[in-house]
């Protein structure tokens, strides 16, 4: 099959590179959502646990 003209070929090349970028973007977005959920849970954990007050011995700096 002879080589496609540039305007035709350009569409295929653009499509291929866009597919690659889309795959990576979707993966990064999904991972971002998961990390946001982890951060939220850490914040909830931080709120749920009481502040630990140090005993007098622990307050002394070595």
């Amino acid at each position, binding site marked *: 099959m002879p*080589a496609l003209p540039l305007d035709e070929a350009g569409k295929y090349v653009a499509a291929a590179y866009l597919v690659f970028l889309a795959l990576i973007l979707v993966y990064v977005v999904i991972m971002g959502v998961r990390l946001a959920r982890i951060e939220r849970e850490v914040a909830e*954990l931080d709120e749920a646990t009481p502040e630990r007050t140090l005993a007098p011995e622990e307050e002394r700096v070595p």
Partner: protein
Amino acid sequence: MYGKGLRALSVATLITLTGAFALVFFYAPNDADQGFVQKIFYLHVPMAIVALCGFVAGGIFAIQHLRTRDARYDLRSYVAIHISLILAVGVLITGAIWARAAWGHWWVWDEPTLVSFLIIFLLYATYQPLRFSIEDPERQARYASVFAVIAGAFVPLNFLAVRLAQAYTHPRVLSTTGGSMPGDMRLTFVIAIIGMALLFVTLWKFEMAAKHARANLRSLRRKLGVEEIPVARRTAAPSL
């Protein structure tokens, strides 16, 4: 542990991939036969090579898991196979686009390179359903590791079998004679492979760091006696 150096790795990946794509469009010449469409080669082939190497890496981690019974190796194997599957989807789609442009068909069933890659992809596509079907975490990890080892061994065998095939349409760019690529194309190709490999490692570390963070969070909840968020459904992903 896995988050260490992730930022530097991400920057290196971004720079290398951007450099590779700049070389593709501004440095590497057009192919004499296929013209501009051949630019897809610098994306499709590195992705295929890295995906296949990722599957083999999954098998190697699985061997380590079976030897040491250390759950961390099972997680490494799972993540390697997961990332490779994503890249394999990219290989199949970009390959179909390139085939349509170069040969006039989206897919050619009598081409061994295409069909063998599809077989590998479908084989690994059963990995997660296999894990999901086994409730007991230790059995799940063990069976998945056995699967990953066998499937990982199949990848190079399959590659060899295709190489020995007599008739082919799919171009051979890496041959025993060193390939027929001129220097500027070869340089672009090498940079593209390095970029794709860096991308794989970055995504692998990224996902490992996320899974470790989740495991640490769960452990912290248990230690502090805080009520666990109920898990709505089973998961195929290993937990530490």
